[in-house]
Structure formats: structure tokens, C-alpha cells
């Protein structure tokens, strides 16, 4: 098998044994990327940086000083600022922007010897669930079962397609309402959103600061553990990053969950849920029970209010964060007419620079924060958020170790199929994932099976705060029991 199809764990072991060089491993990915333009996943390729980093990694491996990620070729979501390399958050408003600094996450990965292959497509400012709001155009899901082009999910759609299509060994993603877990489920890969504060947000273009977390998207749970260990840790430059030691998450993968209590929340059994999702969930419950876990029915009574609360809080924070795009300090500035003043410059620049979904969310956020509505919408949503978090706190206080739910309400849908739908219809994609962001918890999506059309479906496990190790171990058990090995048939 060509090296670009390997897992991070397999590549690490082969690099250390000298069975392959980081340069050869990187070359196999660069070849796959050039042959993979049909997916539209990589939007800024950085082969020169990749080969320089690979050569340095080879020297480091030879000298015996090689951390786990040393020489591993990765894709980086366009939301991460990378020094001297376009970092546009898939928005026209950041056209031409090349940061003069490096995000903490990419700094940590590069310090560990990882190789950057390029920047990955995404929904504009991470706002979307289908990767159709990008200024670079749609990403296409490597999975194809009929004539249609399917969405890879969003917002980390380029990351998901690149990993599922074997263009790289792993990719960074970010997750504000499900943007790692939903695309992971749609493409048959693994994606974890860590506890809020586990990974530094510094240098990651902000969408909704109290919800955003970065995490890895990988081909296996073990890879997620290795990758997350390298990304995590306290950062003085992010005041919300937690000053907690980072355990070796891979060491937590014992495969033993005997006696652990897995909660099954009844509120996640939605009206109109497809029978296939229902069956997948039941299968997952049986797998955890067979592995010796105790299955406990639980209630998270405020679940149905999570989406409306999210769609108040996230746009409110976005409207504030995106105020910085004004055409003055970086990115796009509209061409002005004679006599235009600074207000016209702001208004024209933002109208040209932001796509329709981003504009809509900025305006919703502006409205819910405006005088007279702040209490009715924003403060009420934050109160409901407190109740959603309390639901989880109570479940964990009752001894629940992890919660098992579906990851998405369906498998991947066709690109363009939601074009005429109400924006709220698209928001429903996040129904199972958004609670986790509101409560700040870690959540992971694991591929568990295929639907009748032959498309991947995932289950989500939700863990206790800061217990990503236990969560990954539960996911590892689920992964082994499910034995999901299907790969998309290459058409691109």
C-alpha cells in the first residue's frame, strides 16, 4: 500500500525503524494531493515547506530525537494562521492575507517535527455544515455511490475529504457546533473535539470564542490520541487555555472498559430519525455492553433547546469577532467611489468580502445583541446554556463515564440539495453535536457502519471534562468492535 494511505501510528513506527524516510512519505502525499484536485480539499499547497520540514525530520529521526509526530505529513485547515502562507478562513475578505505569525497549534506540531502539506478548504469562517459557503468552492466527498457529488460535511470539509481520500495522514480541524465530528462521520474517519481550553485558540481565526476548539481528524482512534497529545497544552497567549498537564493520550488506550457506565440519553431519539441511524445506535450500544460496559438510560432534558441557544450565542460572538474585518489592517478593501467616506468603505468592503451565510450570521448576532433585545435573546440563551451544561454535570455526578449518541441525523447528502432550504434546515445537522460545544465537553465521532446506500455513518461518544484519555479509550473499544474498514472507491 502506498505510504499516503498509512495511519500516523504505522508511519511513526516505519519512520523510527528506518523502513521509510519522511521525505518519501511526504512525496507520496504530495503525489496524492496533485492527483486529488477533483476533491478541491487542498486550496493552498506548500510542497516546498513540506519537503524542507521532511528533510529536517529525517535528520531528527536519525539522531534518535523523534517525537511521535516527527515526519508525519498533515493538512492544516485554512482557519489556522500559518506564517507566510495564505490563511483566509475560506473568505474573500482575507484575500491575500499572509500572517506574520504562526498559530500555537501549528507551532506545536512543527516543533514536534510534523510536516505541513498545505491549507485545507472549509466553510467560510467555519460557518456551515456542508462546505458550500467557501470562497474556494465546494469540497467533494471522496465517497460516491451514484452520479451525485456529495458533501463531505462542514465546516472542516476539506480536512475530512483529505484524510478520507488519503491525501494526508491526518489533518487539523476546528469545531464550534460539530465542525470536526459531523464531517468525520460523513467521510468515515475519526474526529475529536477536546474539552474547551485543552487546545490553544491563539492564531486560529475566531468564530465564536466560547465554543471554538481545534482538534485532530484522523484515520484511527490511536492516531487521534497521538495527534491530540501533540496539539494540546497550556498557552499563555490564550487566557482561556487550561493550565493542566497533558497526559499521553495514546497510553490511555487499554481497550478495557469493563464496569464503565455508558449513558444513553433518551432525548437524542428524535422524532423522524431514520431507522438506519436508530439501528446503528442500537448496534453501538450492544458493542459497548459486550465489551463489559454498563449501559444506563439517562435524561438530558434541555437537549432540544441546544440548537436555538447555539444559534443565538454563536452569531452574537461572531458579530463581535468579525467586526475586525473592516478593510483597514488586512485583507480585502472595496474599490471606492469618489466622495466615499470611511463608513462607505466599511459597508462596501464587508458586503463584497463576506458571503451570504456569514453576512446573515453577523446580522443575526448584531440583532440579538442590540439594545432592547440583549436580555430577551442573548442573556436568555446564555441561561439556557447553563441548564444544558447542568444536564451533563448531573449525569456525570451520577457516575456516568461517557455518553453514546449518533453523530449526525443522516449520512452525507448531495451538494446543492439544501440550496433552497431554510437556513434552519441546515442548522439541524448539528443537532447531536452542538450540546457538547455549549457544555465545553470533549466529544469524538467514530465510524461504525455503512447505510443502505453504502455511505459511512458515525457514532459520537461524549466524555467528562478533561478526561479525553478515557473518552479515547471508549472510542477505541467502539472502533475495534465495529471493525469499520471500508474506504471510498477512488474516482478522482
Amino acid at each position, binding site marked *: 500500500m502506498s505510504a499516503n494511505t498509512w495511519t500516523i501510528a504505522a508511519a511513526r513506527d516505519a519512520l523510527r525503524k528506518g523502513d521509510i524516510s519522511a521525505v518519501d512519505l511526504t512525496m507520496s502525499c504530495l503525489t496524492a494531493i496533485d492527483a486529488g484536485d477533483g476533491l478541491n480539499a487542498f486550496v493552498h499547497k506548500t510542497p516546498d515547506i513540506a519537503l524542507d520540514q521532511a528533510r529536517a525530520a529525517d535528520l531528527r529521526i536519525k539522531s534518535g530525537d523523534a517525537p511521535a509526530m516527527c515526519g508525519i505529513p498533515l493538512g492544516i485547515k485554512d482557519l489556522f494562521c500559518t506564517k507566510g502562507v495564505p490563511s483566509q478562513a475560506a473568505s474573500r475578505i482575507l484575500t491575500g*492575507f*499572509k500572517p*506574520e505569525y504562526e498559530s500555537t497549534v501549528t507551532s506545536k506540531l512543527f516543533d514536534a517535527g510534523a510536516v505541513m502539506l498545505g491549507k485545507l478548504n472549509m466553510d467560510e469562517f467555519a460557518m456551515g455544515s456542508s462546505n458550500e459557503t467557501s470562497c474556494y468552492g465546494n469540497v467533494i466527498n471522496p465517497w460516491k455511490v451514484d452520479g451525485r457529488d456529495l458533501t463531505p460535511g462542514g465546516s472542516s470539509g476539506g480536512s475530512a475529504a483529505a484524510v478520507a481520500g488519503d491525501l494526508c495522514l491526518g489533518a487539523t480541524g476546528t469545531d464550534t457546533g460539530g465542525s470536526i465530528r459531523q464531517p468525520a462521520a460523513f467521510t468515515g474517519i475519526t474526529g475529536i473535539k477536546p474539552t474547551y*481550553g485543552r487546545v490553544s485558540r491563539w492564531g486560529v481565526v475566531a468564530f465564536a470564542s*466560547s465554543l471554538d476548539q481545534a482538534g485532530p481528524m484522523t484515520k484511527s482512534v490511536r492516531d487521534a490520541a497521538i495527534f491530540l497529545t501533540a496539539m494540546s497544552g497550556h498557552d499563555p497567549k490564550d*487566557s*482561556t487555555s*487550561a*493550565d493542566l498537564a497533558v497526559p499521553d493520550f495514546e497510553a490511555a488506550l487499554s481497550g478495557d472498559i469493563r464496569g464503565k457506565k455508558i449513558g444513553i440519553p433518551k432525548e437524542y431519539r428524535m422524532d423522524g430519525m431514520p431507522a438506519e441511524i436508530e439501528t446503528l445506535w442500537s448496534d453501538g450500544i450492544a458493542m459497548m455492553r459486550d465489551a463489559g460496559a454498563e449501559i444506563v438510560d439517562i435524561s438530558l432534558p*434541555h437537549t*432540544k*433547546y441546544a*440548537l*436555538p441557544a447555539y*444559534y*443565538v450565542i454563536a452569531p452574537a460572538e461572531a*458579530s463581535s469577532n468579525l467586526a475586525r474585518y*473592516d*478593510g*483597514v*489592517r*488586512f*485583507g*480585502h*478593501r472595496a474599490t*471606492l467611489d469618489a466622495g*466615499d*467616506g*470611511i463608513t*462607505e*468603505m*466599511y*459597508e*462596501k468592503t*464587508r*458586503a463584497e468580502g*463576506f458571503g451570504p451565510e456569514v453576512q*446573515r450570521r453577523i*446580522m*443575526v448576532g*448584531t*440583532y440579538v445583541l*442590540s439594545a432592547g433585545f440583549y436580555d430577551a*435573546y442573548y442573556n*436568555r*440563551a*446564555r*441561561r*439556557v*446554556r*447553563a*441548564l444544558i*451544561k447542568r444536564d451533563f454535570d448531573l449525569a456525570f455526578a451520577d457516575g456516568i463515564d461517557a455518553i453514546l449518541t449518533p453523530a449526525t441525523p443522516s449520512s452525507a447528502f448531495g451538494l446543492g440539495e439544501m440550496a433552497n432550504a*431554510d*437556513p*434552519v434546515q441546515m*442548522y439541524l445537522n448539528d443537532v447531536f453535536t452542538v450540546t457538547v460545544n455549549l*457544555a*465545553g465537553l470533549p466529544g469524538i465521532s467514530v465510524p461504525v457502519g455503512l447505510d443502505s446506500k453504502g455511505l459511512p455513518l458515525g457514532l459520537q461518544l461524549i466524555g467528562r*471534562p478533561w478526561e479525553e484519555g478515557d473518552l479515547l479509550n471508549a472510542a477505541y473499544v467502539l472502533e475495534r468492535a465495529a471493525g469499520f474498514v471500508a474506504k471510498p472507491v477512488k474516482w478522482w
Partner: protein
Amino acid sequence: MSIDIATARKVAKLARISVPEADLPALASKLTGILGFMEQLNEVDVTGIEPMTSVTPMRLKRRADVVTDGNIQAQILKNAPDAREGFFAVPKVVE
């Protein structure tokens, strides 16, 4: 809550996004739909519940109030759409 065209125009102005007059009815209707979805929150009894301000109860770190960088004018101006003589340049603000 229904958003009328005047409110849509006002929100666009507050957000500093130019929206052509012809697009305001469609915008008002989309905003009405989204805000209608949020109305569900009124069903929840939030009496005595404090708005959530932080995900994990933790005290923000303090740091010494000292200058930690500087002399990076060129870097700061590097991405500016219009920079002149060491400054960001914008259209005339004051007559």
C-alpha cells in the same frame, strides 16, 4: 418576532454591511425565520439561573503589566490594503 424591512435595513447598517434596497425583503424574511426558530427558548423556565459566562470555572491568569514586544511596525503594516509613511491609510474621516 417578525423582522420588517426597516429593521433589516437598521441591522445591516449596524453591522456595516451594505445591502441593496432590493435585497432587504428577502433578508427580512430569512432573519424572521431564524429568529422564529429561537423563540423556542421562551419555553424554558430560567428563573434564578445565571447566564453562563465560562465553560470551566477557572480564574483567568494574570500577567505582569509590561511591554513584551514592539518595533514591529513593518510586520504590522505588511498586510494592510493601503499603508503610507508608516501608517494605515483610510478615506478622509474629518472634513
